[in-house]
């Protein structure tokens, strides 16, 4: 509610993504060949059913005893049945009853369920509780059984039977509508409308109904398909039939009586029913993808890569630079390319573009950059955990002499946990919610050590104590949701340490935590790395973290390393405009009286990366020479690299700025 005045000032409008346009609807309905075919089939069924008396070649109830059980012929395209009636004509007449019945049940369910659901979802507690209770009640009724039982009073009365089905189904629609309304009700623009003094009816009709309409349309399609099946089943049982108006369910029953003499009769009515139900279900699904808040599972993690055709091809040549030559490096990454599928001739779009770096044993190495610059993908490639559909499409990752790119699952499993530990950004989602902390830790421990349960239990407590958990025994019995974020991160660290790794990769280990907890976790990591002489590869966007714990640092921008060097040198004497920008947007070193500068714009998505200096569009110091072509990463001294052609000019400028 507090945000309402702000929203008022900026005229309340629905986010574009929430209310699909008519064109989006049409695309969903006709976009793919299958959905276009579904629409075509349904339109055909409806039209044929409506005009059956004009279109049908024959009388559907006219017996012809001289033409019994004939197969398909020119005269009877789909053959004749056991009374010599034309199957095609019966089929054409047989859809209408089913469609009317299903439409009736759906309409009743929607007309009762939607208003009640809107009321329950929008109004206060009392109405909500009562209506939800009624919905739950109807939800627990055996709908089909009740409809069958009603046939004892209303035999073959389709209108009453399907009406009853609609009434019972209304509870489900009510609950569905209520949950949708609940979700929309607290949106900013609805708050704004309320503050602006719109009446409830107006808000419901203008602001809420349009948003919840698409999922309700899905519900209508589902309702139609359920209604068709129910009525066909009733007809098959002889409860929804009328010899004067044949329907497909009844035709299937008639056919089942002739299966020994004429199995063909099963096909026409069965196919008509199956195709209609399939078309309804399919359209329901394709419209559902339009609904707001739809979770498109499996796609969520894919970076935004689609868009204009692959204007940018795979890595540009000559972009790789020399990294610090190091004999003692534990991890040696060279020209690493991580790519995701993208439209266009290349079929792949690099998000990590020829990245090279080394991490020495025992060293703490930082990889810094804004979100979306490729730092997480770079480190996920090391233990072979780039999420599908991403692929490592080039380069080399040598860990202690073992090549990890293209290594077998066996080799990778040997390295993971044992030699390389990994902790991720979100501690609360990094632990399996279904198992206790202790059970997960012990499972990992037993995997590494082949130790007894007893040893595992004591090792588990030791580890938890080592990462600073005061009461390991009771913490081990907790489920992940029962511990705090800081605790969860400590547990995740304990899990990563269980195999006593030589390298710990930490992907933004403190980003999701409170400021005070952040410092504790950093201290813990520093302490662990010193005590165990374990190398640390730390991904962060926080230069303060780098200053605090890193020995060396590489700055990444748009999939490339743009600067590298000892942490102290890079922070005090940056050699790339991007690093300078990052440093000056930190609130810490800013001096009173100076404005806090931020880098204008945002990291471009991979398909918009320029073919020349990738930072040029955002760079205050850009010149003509920056736009000539790709910039190489060049050495400025031992272990000191920069990807800027104007390094010399930078030094002077930076000096002046410090005066």
């Amino acid at each position, binding site marked *: 509610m507090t945000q309402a005045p702000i929203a008022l000032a900026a005229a309340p409008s629905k986010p574009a993504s929430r209310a699909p346009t008519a064109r989006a609807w049409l695309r969903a309905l006709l976009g793919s060949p299958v959905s276009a075919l579904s629409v075509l089939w349904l339109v055909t069924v409806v039209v044929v059913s409506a005009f059956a008396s004009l279109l049908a070649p024959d009388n559907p109830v006219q017996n012809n005893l001289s033409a019994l059980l004939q197969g398909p012929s020119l005269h009877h395209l789909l053959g004749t049945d056991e009374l010599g009636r034309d199957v095609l004509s019966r089929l054409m007449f047989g859809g209408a009853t089913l469609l009317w019945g299903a439409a009736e049940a759906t309409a009743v369910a929607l007309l009762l369920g939607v208003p009640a659901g809107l009321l329950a979802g929008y109004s206060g507690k009392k109405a909500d509780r009562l209506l939800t209770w009624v919905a739950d009640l109807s939800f627990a009724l*055996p709908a089909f*059984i009740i409809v069958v039982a009603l046939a004892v009073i209303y035999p073959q009365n389709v209108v009453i039977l399907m009406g009853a089905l609609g009434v019972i189904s209304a509870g489900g629609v009510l609950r569905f509508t209520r949950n949708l309304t609940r979700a929309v009700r607290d949106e900013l623009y609805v708050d704004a409308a309320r503050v602006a003094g719109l009446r409830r009816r107006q808000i419901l009709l203008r602001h809420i109904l349009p948003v919840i309409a698409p999922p309700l349309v899905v519900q209508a399609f589902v309702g139609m398909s359920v209604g068709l099946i129910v009525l066909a089943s009733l007809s098959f049982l002889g409860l929804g039939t009328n010899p004067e108006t044949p329907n497909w369910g009844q035709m299937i029953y008639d056919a089942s009586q002739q299966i020994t003499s004429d199995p063909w009769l099963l096909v026409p009515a069965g196919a008509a029913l*199956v195709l209609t139900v399939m078309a309804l279900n399919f359209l329901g699904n394709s419209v559902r993808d339009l609904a707001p808040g739809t979770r498109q599972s499996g796609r969520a993690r894919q970076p935004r890569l689609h868009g204009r055709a692959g204007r940018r091809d795979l890595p540009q040549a000559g972009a790789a630079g020399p990294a610090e030559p190091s004999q003692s490096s534990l991890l040696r990454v060279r020209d690493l390319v991580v790519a995701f599928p993208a439209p266009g001739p290349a079929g792949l779009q690099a998000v990590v573009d020829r990245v090279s770096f080394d991490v020495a044993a025992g060293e703490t190495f930082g990889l810094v950059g804004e979100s979306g610059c490729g730092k997480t993908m770079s480190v996920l490639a090391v233990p072979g955990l780039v999420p599908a559909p991403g692929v490592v499409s080039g380069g080399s990752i040598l860990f202690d002499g073992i090549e990890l790119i293209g290594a077998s699952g066996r080799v990778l499993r040997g390295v*993971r946990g044992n030699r390389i530990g990994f902790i991720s950004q979100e501690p609360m989602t990094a632990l399996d919610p279904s198992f206790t902390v202790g059970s997960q830790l012990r499972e990992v421990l037993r995997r590494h050590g082949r130790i007894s349960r007893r040893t595992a239990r004591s090792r588990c407590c030791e580890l938890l104590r080592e990462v600073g958990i005061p009461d390991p025994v009771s913490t081990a019995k907790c489920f992940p949701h029962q511990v705090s974020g800081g605790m969860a991160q400590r547990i995740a660290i304990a899990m990563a340490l269980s195999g006593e790794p030589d390298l710990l990769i930490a992907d933004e280990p403190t980003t999701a935590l409170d400021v005070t907890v952040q410092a504790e976790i950093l201290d813990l990591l520093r302490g662990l790395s010193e005590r165990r002489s374990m190398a640390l590869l730390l991904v962060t966007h926080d230069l303060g973290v780098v200053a605090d714990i890193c020995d060396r640092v590489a700055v990444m921008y748009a999939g490339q390393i743009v600067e590298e060097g000892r942490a102290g040198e890079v922070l005090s004497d940056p050699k790339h405009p991007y690093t300078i920008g990052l440093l000056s947007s930190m609130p810490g070193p800013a001096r009173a009286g100076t404005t806090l500068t931020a880098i204008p714009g945002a990291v471009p998505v991979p398909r918009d990366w320029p073919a020349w200096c990738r930072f040029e569009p955002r760079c205050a110091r850009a010149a003509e020479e920056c736009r000539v072509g790709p910039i190489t990463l060049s050495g400025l001294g031992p272990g000191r690299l920069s990807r800027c052609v104007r390094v010399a000019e930078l030094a002077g400028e930076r000096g002046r700025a410090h005066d």
Partner: protein
Amino acid sequence: MALGRLVLAIPMLFVVATATFFLQQLVPGDPGSFILGNEASPAEIRQFDAGLGLNKPVLERYGSWLGRAIRGNLGMSWTSHSPVTQTLLAAAPITLSLTVLAIVVIVCLGVPLGTLAALHPGPVDRFFQAFAGFAIALPNFWLGVGLVLLLAVDARLFPATGYTSLSDPAQWLHALVLPVLALAFGMTMTLALQVRSAMIDVLARDYIRSLRAAGLSWRSVLFKHALRNCMAPVVTTIGFQLLGLLAGAVVIEQLFNLPGLGSVLLTGVTEHDVPLVQGAVLLFAVFVVAVNLLTDVAAAALNPRARGR
């Protein structure tokens, strides 16, 4: 949560019981003329109605009926004149055999199929989805007739109709193969679709990555951790499917001539035997309540967050 359901279950059974009782009031005309037919004299009809206690006030009859129903006495059938409870108890094992076997088939096939599809994006998954779309749209009675044609009439592998009691397990299973297949086919694919999307969702979670990064084998991550986390939504689906199976059983029992609860219901419906219909509906309602309770208890047990409270 489960307790909430139990609280809901009692009024629900009460509502169903009341509704089934007043169902009788809706029968046009009086039951006597309905059952005895046009040839019966008015005196005979009055006597028949009095025999059923129909001359007493509605509310009085409702009270005594409800009182007896709670004690398990559902009255006498109007046509066979045997106790309804006895008829229902004789039929229940057949419906239970059918639904329990079907749910076993659905779970044993649906979970692996869905997992397989989730693990093979691309052509395998697309084929799976297309096939599932077809399977779900296929009416169980059409499939049943088709199976009878192929495997009972043509191949003579299984009997087309009939039921053998569990005292001869091999024959019992043999007789139930076709009905169970017809009943389970579409729902297997419904469950498989549900497992597929739950699995895709779970496999993209951070903890799967951290467990793999900690060195656990893919098999252990998949079968222990991923599957375990898929189970909560899947159990809810299984609950819904058990309810769907009860409805499907009515059709399948008729098709395969199995004397289960569905057949009792249909006999009652076609012969206007109201006590039989009332009893069958009540028993179905009891099953529905039991299944809902079991589902809620199982879902709660699978969710550590709910368990802690």
